[in-house]
């Protein structure tokens, strides 16, 4: 679709995923298309249960879509691609409780790296997330926010060029959350990375992203694609008070709500969910003029 574009990192092309459980089938993604540029931070903003984690699993090559294609750097994804870092929604379960923090971080490093490089990378990543002192402790001895930082350090130690994060800050308190958000803003600048971050927090998505993609309830479709015209330098107070931010927040909230109400009308619509049929959801796909709302707000 856009494989010819220079700098294209992720392309999701008409992807559909359904879970079959005995007789019932749950369509989670139905013809979703999405596009992420290199070095871009894109937040996927959608209501709970709409299929965000499923989409991320497809990007990570952990699940093959039933239809459509996911491409990374123009190459179709088959299995887990190279240069990937993932922070799972359930970070507690993705850490190894029997290994130390340092060993957990080192777990993310390629097996063929030599010992001293491994140690250096591990230390550097723990330093970056402010956990250098906790290297010898076990995940169980850490707070939720610290565990989350271990998971982030593990992803960073790998020096990924694509970082996938699934609601990474959802289960920490507001202060820790602000810290972790700023951590991401900072490391994202230090390591050149493309970031796809899933959240259902409107403020967070705008604060972190270059672009916010608003998704509809299940089956997730792109409702809107908002360019965040904020400078890359962000500040927890000033940014959140800026006019652009406030405006975007209102807009995103409106779009989320409209997605919800549309999904109400969605039920019972004949033909929805069939192959090629896109249903009444406005704005599936990423070609301009296809109905996706695009906003480019500059400061």
């Amino acid at each position, binding site marked *: 679709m856009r494989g010819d574009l220079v700098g294209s990192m992720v392309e999701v092309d008409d992807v559909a995923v359904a879970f079959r459980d005995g007789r019932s089938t749950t369509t989670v993604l139905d013809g979703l298309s999405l596009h992420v540029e290199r070095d871009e931070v894109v937040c996927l903003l959608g209501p709970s249960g709409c299929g965000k984690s499923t989409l991320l*699993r497809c990007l990570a090559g*952990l699940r093959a879509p039933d239809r459509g294609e996911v491409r990374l750097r123009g190459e179709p994804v088959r299995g887990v691609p190279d240069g990937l870092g993932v922070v799972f929604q359930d970070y507690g*379960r*993705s850490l*190894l409780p*029997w*290994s130390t923090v340092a060993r*957990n971080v080192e*777990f993310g490093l*390629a097996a063929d790296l030599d010992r001293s490089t491994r140690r250096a990378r591990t230390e550097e990543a723990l330093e970056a997330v402010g956990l250098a002192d906790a290297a010898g402790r076990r995940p169980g001895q850490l707070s939720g926010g610290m565990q989350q930082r271990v998971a982030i350090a593990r992803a960073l130690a790998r020096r990924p060029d694509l970082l996938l994060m699934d609601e990474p800050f959802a289960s920490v308190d507001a202060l820790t959350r602000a810290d972790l958000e700023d951590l991401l803003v900072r490391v994202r600048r230090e390591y050149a990375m493309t970031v796809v971050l899933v959240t259902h927090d409107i403020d967070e998505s705008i604060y972190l992203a270059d672009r916010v993609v608003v998704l509809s309830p299940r089956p997730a479709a792109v409702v809107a694609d908002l360019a965040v015209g904020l400078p890359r330098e962000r500040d927890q107070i000033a940014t959140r008070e800026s006019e652009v931010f406030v405006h975007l927040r209102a807009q995103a909230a409106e779009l989320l709500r409209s997605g919800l109400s549309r999904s109400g009308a969605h039920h019972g619509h004949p033909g929805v969910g069939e192959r090629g049929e896109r249903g009444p959801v406005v704005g599936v796909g990423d070609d301009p003029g296809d109905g996706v709302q695009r906003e480019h707000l500059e400061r």
Partner: protein
Amino acid sequence: MEPRVGGGLVTRPLVRWGVFALVVVVWELVARAAGSAFFPPPTAIAQVGWRTWFSGPAVLTEAAWADVVPSVLRVVVGWGLSAVIGIAVGLLLGRSRRAGEYLAPLLAFARALPPPVLIPVFVILFAAGTPMQLAVIVFGTVWPVLLNTADGARGVDPVTMDTAEVYRVTGFRRLRRVILPAAAPRIVAGLRVSLSLALILMVVSELMASTSGLGHQLVVAQRGFDFPAMWAAIVLLGVVGYALNAALLGVERRALGRSTG
């Protein structure tokens, strides 16, 4: 909630062993008062045991080398073989869904067979002797390790497995860093059950068909109406069992407490 008073008292080893000593003293007094030839007092049993096994030139007597050492070796080697086979096959079954499904009924049946019933079969196959006893012990004790390991390996958190997948931790490295540590508590539980079973099967197989070992010694003493010797064999079997369990517990504490990753 544990009652605070007394809770601390009971857990103190001194108190626990005090109760043990008390029971032995009572047994001694009752046995002396009764004066039955079938129930010699503990001091008499200890004397016989000491004389038979521990009064040799290098502590152990010739009888000890003939009775105790073969028994202990059979338990340890049989159980060790079970551990290796059980863990290896268990990991395979736990991580391969197809293998697990195909073999489940077979395993359920094999596990349900009471292991001693196979002693006659193994006697024919191997003749009475150590290979027969090892076969009985292995066949009887492999199931708890195998099934527990399979369960443990199957139960690795899917998010953890996804993490390993994403970070390309595969093959032996995944086994060592993820699957084995995740399954370790279950494996250890299986090993503990197997060790108790191995002791039982060692004795049973020695009682039924053997020319050496503590079980054999027990039968010989019983047939010769040498009741103190019979009791001494029984007590020594208890001691051996206790020592092996304690050793396993020690290894387990260190293995599970230490960093495995």
